[in-house]
């Protein structure tokens, strides 16, 4: 080690740049996280509270101006949404009534349920967290021990093992 690699005094400007870079890093991380966070939203057209909020008989739901989805009473469908704030347009096929709402999804949740009647009535709690019943993963793709065995010490390609680049398949 010579003098140049030994303790070098950081100039204040350099220090500021470094701190700035670290801050920028976390800002970018946060930005990408919020913008890229993807949620599954279940659109639920079921009556609630024993008929107080009736289901739509036939409704067209368009999320962020996309092709509308048609839902009859007691129907449920799902959409995948990136980001947290979304515009939802409901159009009742029966009376042509159009409702436009903006919803905000909680960032930490993967799967949410949106009750359309509640949304239309403008009530609180139209969005709730949905926990699927069969949360357990399907039991496929479990060949782990063999797989690891195949990677033996120097993980070189085994003969006949699929090449990492797919061969031409046409």
């Amino acid at each position: 080690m010579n003098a140049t690699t030994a303790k070098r005094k950081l100039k204040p400007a350099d220090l500021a740049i470094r701190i700035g870079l670290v801050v920028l890093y976390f800002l970018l991380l946060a930005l990408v996280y919020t913008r890229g966070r993807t949620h599954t939203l279940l659109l639920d057209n079921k009556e609630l509270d024993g008929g107080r909020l009736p289901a739509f008989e036939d409704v067209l739901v368009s999320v962020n101006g996309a092709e509308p989805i048609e839902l009859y009473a007691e129907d449920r469908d799902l959409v995948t949404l990136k980001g947290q704030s979304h515009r939802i347009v409901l159009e009742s096929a029966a009376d042509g009534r159009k409702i436009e709402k903006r919803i905000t999804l909680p960032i930490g949740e993967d799967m949410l349920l949106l009750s359309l009647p509640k949304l239309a009535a403008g009530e609180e709690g139209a969005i709730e967290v949905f926990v699927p019943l069969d949360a357990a993963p399907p039991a496929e793709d479990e060949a782990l021990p063999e797989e690891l065995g195949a990677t033996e010490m120097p993980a070189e390609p085994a003969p006949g093992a699929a090449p990492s680049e797919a061969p031409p398949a046409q």
Partner: protein
Amino acid sequence: MPDLKQTVAEFGWPRVIIFLFLVALFVLAPFVGVRLDDSLTNVLNRFGQNAVFVLAMVPMIQSGCGLNFGLSLGIIAGLLGGILSGQLGLAGAAGFFGAIALASPFAVLLGLGYGKLLNKVKGEEMTIAMYVGFASVMFMCIMWLVLPFSNPTMIWGYGGKGLRTTISVEKFYRGVLNNFLMIKAGEHLRIPTGTLLFDALCAYLMWGFLKTRTGTAVTAVGSNPDYARASGLSVDRMRTVSVVISTFLGAVGILVYQQSYGFMQLYGAPLQMPFAAVAAILIGGASVNKASMLNVILGTFLFQGLLTMTPSVINAALQTDMSEVVRLIVSNGIIVYALTRKTRVAK
């Protein structure tokens, strides 16, 4: 106390840790229901299988060619010998020694070519050896498919062309060494005396060779090429001799391995074998340019002990198979460690 400290420092901390780990595994074994005599049988078996490979590292390390990552060339020669012996229908001891005899010309020729090549690339031997080994293994993969062997136990049943991936040597030379004078002490403890004796013979011959004129010349060339050149030794010739011997031992090694393991493994199998041998001799205390018989024996025992004990003990204790990962980390870690030790690089 400083003596102990110095000894440990010379031996290298990683090796001490591996040694202690192995001791801990042996101590733990009975508590998790692993039979010690079973384990010992396994360790001895695997020691016998692999010792010759590890021994094959010695001449090239001594002559300054570094770690023989291209041991696969010797293994290929051995496989050819084994297959030819099977093709000729040799069996038993005749099969085994016939295979060695048939492998020899290939081993010598390949060793000569390999040695000539390594002489041209002094200073870069290890990386090149590795890729020469890989390329040859892949070339032989094509050959195993194309060569006109016809013994039905060796070729694919359908199509009648190309050698099988694994060939049983049951009918050829399985257990020729292992069963020779085998000691059966109790139900679980079996000592493969023949294989161990054969290993000992090889090690003795190597030890003897290193004491001969040629042997000392090989060592001299490795430890100080300039001095050796000045005193009239042909550096290139001595290096080639060491490479040929190493390649030949690789060929013998794979045959010893097969007779104990019971199968020939063709195609990609030889790709991985040199790394295990390299790791073993380094664990035994060898460096990139110095190795002894003690390093071979200790290293094979420690490495194979680790490979045998880790799966059985850790599986029994934790109910998970971590052995592959432990093996990856230990064997490659020790190689990296040895490569970063300060040694002169001969140009």
